[in-house]
C-alpha cells in the first residue's frame, strides 16, 4: 500500500517541485540556482534585474504552465471518460478549434465591427468568454452527434471535421482582416505561456479552479461511467446532468486555457493516458489530481525545452508539445493492446 502511495503521490510531487525549480532556473539570463531557492523561500534581496526577471517573468510563466498543463490534462481525462475513448482530448475532438474560432471572431472580427465594438470586446475577459463559448458550442455539437452515433471512431472523425470546418472559417476571417489583427491572431495560435500579466493569471486561476470544482462534483458519476452509460444509469446516475457538467467543466478549462495560452496540442490527450499506465487504476479519485500534477510537470518541462539556453529565443510552445506529443500518440496506437478505454 505504502509503495503505491510513493508511486502515485510522492514521486510526482517530487518531480513537480524539481521541474518548477528547473523551469525557474532556465532562460536567457543565467540566475544561479541557490539564489532562486533563497529568494523564493526567504526574503533575501538579490540583484534587482534578477528579481524582476524572476517575479515578473519566470514565476508567472511557471504558474501559467502549471495551470495550463494541469487543466488541459484534466479536461482530456473528462473527455476520455465521457466518450469512453482513449484518443479523446480537447484537441482531437475539435474543442480547441472551437476556442480558436471564438478567439478569431473576436480578434479578427472586431476589426470589421468598428471602434465602439472593439473597445467593448477588448480585455482578457472578452478573450476568455469568446474562447470558452467557442469550445462549448463545438462540444455541444460533438455531444449531439455522439447521441446519434455510438461508434467512437466516427465520433473522432466528426471532431476532426469540426476542426477543419472552424479552421476554414478562420481562414476566411483572416483573408478579410487587417495585418495587425492577423498578426495578433497568428501569435496567439503559436501558443505561449510567458506573456500573461498577474491579473490574467488570476483570471486563469479562477477559471481553472471553477472547472476543477465542477469536475470534482462529477467525480462519482465519472466513476460510474467507467462501467458504461447503461450501468451508470442503473446505479441512479442522471446521464443528462453528468454529461452536461462534464462538458461544462471541459469547456471552461479548455476554453480559458486556450484563450490565454493558445491552442496547445497533445497534452490533454497524452497525459491522462500515461497517468493511467502509471497509477494502474482508472479511479477518478486518483486520476483527477494525478492528471493535474503530471500535466503540470509535462508542461513545465516542455516550456523548459522551449527556452533555448542562454539565448533570447523561445520556440512556440505549441510546436514543442506537438513534437513531443505526436510520437507518444503514435506509440499508444502501435501498442494496440493498450488502446483500451
Amino acid at each position, binding site marked *: 500500500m505504502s509503495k503505491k502511495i510513493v508511486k502515485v503521490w510522492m514521486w510526482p510531487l517530487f518531480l513537480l517541485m524539481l521541474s518548477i525549480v528547473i523551469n525557474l532556473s532556465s532562460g536567457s539570463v543565467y540566475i544561479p540556482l541557490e539564489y532562486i531557492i533563497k529568494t523564493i523561500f526567504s526574503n533575501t534581496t538579490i540583484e534587482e534585474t534578477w528579481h524582476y526577471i524572476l517575479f515578473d517573468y519566470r514565476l508567472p510563466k511557471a504558474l501559467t504552465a502549471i495551470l495550463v498543463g494541469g487543466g488541459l490534462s484534466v479536461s482530456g481525462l473528462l473527455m476520455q471518460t465521457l466518450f*469512453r475513448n482513449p484518443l479523446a482530448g480537447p484537441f482531437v475532438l475539435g474543442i480547441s478549434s472551437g476556442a480558436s474560432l471564438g478567439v478569431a471572431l473576436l480578434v479578427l472580427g472586431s476589426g470589421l465591427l468598428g471602434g465602439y465594438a472593439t473597445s467593448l470586446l477588448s480585455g482578457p475577459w472578452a478573450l476568455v468568454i469568446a474562447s470558452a463559448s467557442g469550445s462549448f458550442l463545438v462540444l455541444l455539437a460533438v455531444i449531439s452527434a455522439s447521441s446519434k452515433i455510438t461508434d467512437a471512431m466516427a465520433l473522432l472523425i466528426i471532431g476532426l471535421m469540426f476542426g477543419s470546418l472552424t479552421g476554414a472559417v478562420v481562414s476566411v476571417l483572416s483573408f478579410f482582416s487587417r495585418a495587425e489583427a492577423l498578426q495578433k491572431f497568428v501569435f496567439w495560435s503559436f501558443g505561449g505561456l510567458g506573456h500573461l500579466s498577474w491579473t490574467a493569471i488570476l483570471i486563469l486561476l479562477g477559471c481553472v479552479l471553477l472547472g476543477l470544482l465542477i469536475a470534482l*462534483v462529477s*467525480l*462519482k458519476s465519472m*466513476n*460510474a461511467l*467507467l*462501467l*458504461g*452509460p*447503461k*450501468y451508470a*444509469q*442503473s*446505479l*441512479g*446516475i*442522471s446521464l443528462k446532468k453528468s454529461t452536461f457538467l462534464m462538458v461544462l467543466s471541459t469547456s471552461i478549462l479548455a476554453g480559458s486555457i486556450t484563450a490565454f495560452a493558445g491552442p496547445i496540442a497533445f497534452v490533454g490527450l497524452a497525459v491522462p493516458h500515461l497517468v*493511467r499506465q502509471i497509477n*494502474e*487504476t*482508472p*479511479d477518478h*479519485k486518483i486520476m483527477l489530481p494525478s492528471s493535474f500534477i503530471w500535466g503540470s510537470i509535462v508542461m513545465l518541462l516542455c516550456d523548459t525545452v522551449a527556452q533555448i539556453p542562454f539565448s533570447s529565443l523561445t520556440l512556440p510552445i505549441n510546436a514543442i508539445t506537438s513534437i513531443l506529443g505526436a510520437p507518444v500518440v503514435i506509440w499508444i496506437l502501435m501498442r494496440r493492446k493498450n488502446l*483500451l*478505454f
Partner: protein
Amino acid sequence: MLKATDITMGYNKGAKQPVVLAQHINLSLKPNQLTAIIGPNGSGKSTLLNTLSGQLTPLAGIIEIQNHPLQSLSNFEQSNYISLVLTKKEFSQHLSVIEFIELGRIPYTNWLGTLGPEDHQAVQNALNATNLNDLRHQKCGTLSDGQMQRVAIARALAQDTPIILLDEPTTHLDFAHKAQTLKLLKSLTQNHQKSVAYSTHDIDLALDLADQIICVNSGHLNTGTAQEIIDKGIISQIFESDLVRFDNKTRRFSISD
C-alpha cells in the same frame, strides 16, 4: 415484487407511429424465483427487459415494484430495487475486478463514492458468492468471458437489490460455463431471496432450471412453468422453421433430417 399489468411494449421511433412489439402483457417476478425470457431473434426479449428495468417507458399499462409505480420512482430510487447485468462490453478495461464490483455500491455511498465498512462487507459477500476472491486484483480486460460474467453478477449482488435483470448472460460462453452461470443465478434465488430474470437463447437450459418461463413470440407473451409451456405446445412452435424440431420428452431441440 415486480408486477406488470396490461402493458404495451414498444418504442417511439422519431416522429413516426410508435413501434408496438407486444400488447396486454401481464406478468410478475417473485422472490426466490428464476425467470427465463425466451423467444426467437428480434421478438423483443431485450425490449421486455429494458421495459421491466425502467430504461424504456411502456407505451401503456403500469409496472409496479413492491407496490410503487416504476415511472414515479426516480433513477436513484430505481437503483435500490433493480440491478442489471449487461453483456455489452462498454466498461473500462482498466478496472480491476474489485473496482468493478465496488462500483455497484454507488447508490449507497457519499458524493465522493467513499466505501464504508458496510460497503466493504457487501463487496466481500458478493466476491464470496461468486467465488471470485482469487481474481479480485485482476484487470477486467484480461478476464475470460465466463469470468467476466461472474464479475458482472457480483457487481449486481453488491448493489444489493431484490431484483436482478440479466441481458443474455450465457451468450459467448461454452456449455460448462453456461451451466455454471445459470447454477449461480439459481443459487442467488434460493440462498439470497433474489428475484432473477434473464433473457436467453439457450431454451433447453432454461427449461431445465428456470422456475418461470416467459416466451416472447410474434407479439404474444406466454408465461408459465417449463412443463406448462411445453404442454401448451409453445416451445415446439417457437421457431417457424422446418429445420429444427423439439422433442417434448427429452426437452431438447435437434436438427430435423
